[in-house]
């Protein structure tokens, strides 16, 4: 599927410019395309599509295409996304939710709900959280710290 999309891009450029493309372009489209295709239900699916920055002439006058990766994660964006997902969960009262609220003690959830929440986080951020570490994450701030730890986000 990604190759078909690339093919269309290439064809739309017109034949002559093909020969001007340098051969060592770093194209990071395929993995992001695959990730976007597999997760249509995530609310950030729209923002996950690669953005084609268009063609630009680099200094040597050769035409080259640029593709961008996902925007870099920051602690604030991680926190916003985590809180958004938690607000969407129907067993949590959004008014009572804060970053330091404990799932079991403050929000009255049980361990089955906690498993569901962690699975929602896995879907949101696109990477697996192993069981041993998942059962320790009991507040939103712990989740944010864990994700920042795994994704090498620091401030």
């Amino acid at each position, binding site marked *: 599927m990604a190759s078909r999309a690339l093919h269309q891009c290439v064809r739309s450029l017109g034949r002559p410019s093909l020969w001007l493309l340098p051969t060592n372009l770093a194209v990071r489209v395929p993995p992001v395309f695959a990730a976007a295709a597999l997760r249509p239900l995530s609310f950030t699916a729209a923002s996950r599509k690669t953005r084609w920055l268009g063609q630009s002439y680099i200094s040597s006058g050769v035409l080259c295409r640029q593709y961008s990766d996902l925007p870099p994660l920051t602690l604030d964006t991680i926190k916003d996304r985590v809180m958004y997902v938690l607000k969407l969960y129907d067993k949590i009262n959004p008014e009572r939710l804060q970053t330091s609220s404990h799932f079991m003690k403050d929000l009255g959830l049980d*361990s*089955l709900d906690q*498993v*569901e929440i962690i699975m929602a986080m896995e879907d949101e951020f696109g990477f697996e959280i192993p069981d041993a570490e998942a*059962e320790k994450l009991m507040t939103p701030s712990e989740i944010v710290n864990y994700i920042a730890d795994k994704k090498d986000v620091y401030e």
Partner: protein
Amino acid sequence: MARHSKLQKQVLALYRQFLRAGRDKPGFLPRIRDEFRENANIKKTDVMHIEYLYRRAQRQLEQLKDVNTKQLGTFTKGK
């Protein structure tokens, strides 16, 4: 409860596998959640019952994961 016992961890891992397997096939998720929720208040000491349900769940998980299983529906008694 501060720490989960071995059995509790197994049950939670099983719940995860069920949720992952039932994600793409319609009709399974409410059933999975209800079933686990209903059995959540068995006493921790009643190990025989828990293990029986656990073995049953493993067999049902195999059935769920089978490619030939497409969806789940329920009949309710209307008035």
